[in-house]
C-alpha cells in the first residue's frame, strides 16, 4: 500500500509592490507546502556540480482539468515541461510513451509502468476552477524508483496568471530535485531592435524568462542601451540618448516613471545596481577618459572610484558589496580588474590572450562572467574572482554581454550575426557550456538582463 503525503497549503499574501506584476491585481494567493520527509538515500536527486550532466528523465502527464476553461491545465503542463527541459537538467519524456494515462493529482501511480519507460521522476497535477473564479492548481512530485511522493503543493491564482503559476511549480520541482533555487518565475529585460542595421530602432522591453509576455517599456524615439534590473525593486537602470548628454536613467517598470541618475558633467553609461539596490555604479566620460562613479540613490551623493586616463567601464559589484570588477584599457588593452568597493587596490585578474570586457559577478559570488575577443572571435567565458579557472562557454563571430540567472547556473547573452541583414538574438548557456539555447524574441534583441527571483 502506497504512503501518500497530504497536500499542505499555506496561503501567502505577497507584497504587491515587491512582486510588481501588473497582472497580479486582487488577492493573489500563492500556496506553499513542505516537502515530506523521507530517507534521503531513497530519493532521486540531480547532482549539478558535475560537468556534463545526463538530464533526468521526468514524466509530466498533462494535468487534469476540473471545470477550468479551455486547455489551461494542458498549457500549464507544457510550460512546466518546457522550463525543465530548457534548464538542460531534465529530459521530459514523450507523453506518447506513457503506459498509465488519464492521471490527476489523486491518481495512484503504477510505478512499474513509469519505471518501464525509464522515468525517474513523475509529476501529477490537477487544475480546478473555484466557485469564485480563481484557479486552484495542485501537483505532486514522485520518486519513481523509491515509489514515494517527494513534494505536494497547491496554489491559488487568478486565471490570467496561469503561466506564472506554471513557472512557480517548475521552480518547486527544480528546487526539490537539484537542491538549488529555481529561476523560472523570473523575467528578462532587454533591448528590442528592429529596422535596417544603419537605421535601427531600439526599445526597452521585458519578457518572462521563457520569452512569453513581451512588453515594451520605451517607444523607440530615443536610443536606449544596457538595461539592468534592480535586485529588489521593479526598476531598471539603463542608458538613453535623450535631450542633452546621453545619460544613465532609472525606470519604474510598474508606473513608467523615469528619472536621470545624478547630475554629472558629461555622458554617463554602463550602469548597474549595487547588491542592496541603494546605489548605481556607472562610467562617467570626461574628455577622452572614462572613470567609474557610484551614486547613492537616497542621499544623491556621488563617489569617484577610479581616476585614470584610461577607459574604465562595465563595473559590477560582488554580491556582498565589498568589491567591484570592471574593465579597463589602462594596461594597453581591455582587461578585467577587481578593486575594493571604495576604489582602492585595483588588481588585474585577466591574463589570457585577447581582450576581456563586460565582466559581471555571479549572484553566488564564486564566478565572474565576461566577453572575450581573440583573433576576430567573440566568446562568453567565466573565471574565478582571482582570475583563475578561466573557461570559455561559447564562441563565434560575435557573442557579447553575459548576465546571470538569479541562481548563478545560467548565463543569458546576445549573439550578433554579420552583414547588412544581420542582427542580435538572445541566447542562454549554462555553466557546463553544453546546454546552449536561443530565446525566442519578436525581433532582434540585445543586452539581456535577468530579474532577481520574484518571490
Amino acid at each position: 500500500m502506497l504512503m501518500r503525503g497530504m497536500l499542505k497549503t499555506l496561503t501567502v499574501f505577497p507584497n504587491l509592490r515587491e512582486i510588481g506584476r501588473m497582472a497580479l491585481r486582487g488577492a493573489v494567493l500563492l500556496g506553499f507546502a513542505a516537502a515530506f520527509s523521507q530517507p534521503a538515500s531513497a530519493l532521486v536527486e540531480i547532482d549539478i556540480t558535475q560537468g556534463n550532466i545526463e538530464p533526468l528523465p521526468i514524466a509530466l502527464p498533462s494535468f487534469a482539468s476540473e471545470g477550468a476553461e479551455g486547455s489551461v491545465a494542458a498549457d500549464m503542463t507544457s510550460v512546466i515541461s518546457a522550463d525543465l527541459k530548457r534548464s538542460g537538467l531534465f529530459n521530459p519524456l514523450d507523453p506518447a510513451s506513457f503506459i498509465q494515462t488519464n492521471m490527476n493529482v489523486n491518481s495512484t501511480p503504477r510505478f512499474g509502468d513509469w519505471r518501464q519507460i525509464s522515468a525517474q521522476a513523475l509529476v501529477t497535477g490537477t487544475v480546478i476552477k473555484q466557485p469564485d473564479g480563481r484557479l486552484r492548481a495542485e501537483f505532486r512530485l514522485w520518486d519513481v524508483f523509491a515509489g514515494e511522493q517527494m513534494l505536494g503543493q497547491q496554489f491559488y491564482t487568478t486565471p490570467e496568471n496561469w503561466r506564472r503559476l506554471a513557472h512557480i511549480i517548475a521552480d518547486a520541482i527544480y528546487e526539490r530535485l537539484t537542491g538549488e533555487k529555481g529561476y523560472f518565475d523570473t523575467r528578462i529585460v532587454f533591448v528590442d531592435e528592429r529596422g535596417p542595421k544603419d537605421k535601427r530602432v531600439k526599445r526597452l522591453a521585458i519578457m518572462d524568462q521563457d520569452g512569453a509576455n513581451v512588453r515594451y517599456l520605451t517607444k523607440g524615439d530615443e536610443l536606449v542601451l544596457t538595461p539592468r534590473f534592480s535586485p529588489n525593486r521593479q526598476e531598471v537602470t539603463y542608458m538613453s540618448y535623450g535631450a542633452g548628454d546621453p545619460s544613465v536613467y532609472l525606470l519604474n517598470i510598474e508606473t513608467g516613471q523615469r528619472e536621470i541618475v545624478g547630475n554629472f558633467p558629461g555622458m554617463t553609461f554602463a550602469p548597474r545596481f549595487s547588491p542592496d539596490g541603494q546605489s548605481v555604479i556607472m562610467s562617467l566620460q570626461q574628455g577622452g577618459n572614462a572613470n567609474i562613479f557610484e551614486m547613492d540613490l537616497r542621499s544623491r551623493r556621488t563617489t569617484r572610484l577610479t581616476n585614470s586616463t584610461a577607459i574604465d567601464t562595465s563595473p559590477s559589484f560582488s554580491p556582498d558589496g565589498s568589491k567591484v570588477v570592471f574593465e579597463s584599457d589602462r594596461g594597453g588593452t581591455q582587461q578585467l580588474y577587481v578593486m575594493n568597493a571604495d576604489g582602492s587596490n585595483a588588481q588585474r585578474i585577466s591574463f589570457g590572450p585577447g581582450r576581456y570586457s563586460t565582466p559581471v559577478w555571479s549572484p553566488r559570488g564564486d564566478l565572474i562572467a565576461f566577453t572575450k575577443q581573440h583573433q576576430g572571435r567573440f566568446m562568453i567565458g567565466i573565471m574565478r574572482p582571482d582570475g583563475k579557472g578561466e573557461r570559455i562557454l561559447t564562441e563565434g563571430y560575435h557573442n557579447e554581454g553575459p548576465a546571470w540567472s538569479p541562481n548563478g547556473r545560467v548565463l543569458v547573452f546576445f549573439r550578433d550575426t554579420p552583414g547588412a541583414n544581420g542582427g542580435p538574438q538572445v541566447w542562454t548557456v549554462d555553466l557546463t557550456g553544453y546546454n546552449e539555447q536561443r530565446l525566442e524574441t519578436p525581433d532582434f534583441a540585445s543586452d539581456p538582463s535577468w530579474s532577481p527571483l520574484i518571490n
Partner: protein
Amino acid sequence: MFKRVNAALGARWIAVLFTVMFVAACANNPNNPNDPNGLASNVRPGTGQDFVVNVGDRVFFEEDQSVLNSQAQTTLAGQAKWLNRYPQYTITVEGHADERGTRQYNIALGARRAQAARDYLVSQGVNASRIKTISYGKERPVAVCNDNSCWSQNRRAVTVLNNATN
C-alpha cells in the same frame, strides 16, 4: 576626394547628400556638360553643403585607435580653416566605433575619437565653446557590409554643423 564624399552618408545629411551625390557624380564624369571644370561649382560657399563637399565632414581611425593620421589632420585643418572663416556655426563632433567591439567600450572609444578631433580643431584656432562632442559607440553605422571596407568607414568622427543652412 569625391569618392570619400560619396561614402559619407550620415543620416543628418540625407537632404544635403542627394545634392552631394549628384555633384560628385557629375564631377566624376568629365563628359558632363553641366560640370565642365569638374568642381562642385554650384555649392554656395559657407553653407553646410560647402562644408561637406569641399572640406569633408569626417575623419577615420584605425581599429581600436583614436590617433589622428596625417589625412585626418589635413581634413581637420581644413575644417578649422572653414569654421574660422564662418564663425556663425557651432558644431557637434560625433565619435563612432565599428561593430567589432563590445558596447560599453565602444561608447568610450567613440568619445575618445570625438575628443581627439575636437582637440585638433581647438589647436587650429576654433573656439572650444563652439564645439560639443557626443559618442554613439557602435550604434550608428553608416556602412553595413561584413568586412573591413565597411568597418573602416564606421570608425569615424563626424563634424556636424548645428545651425547649418543650405
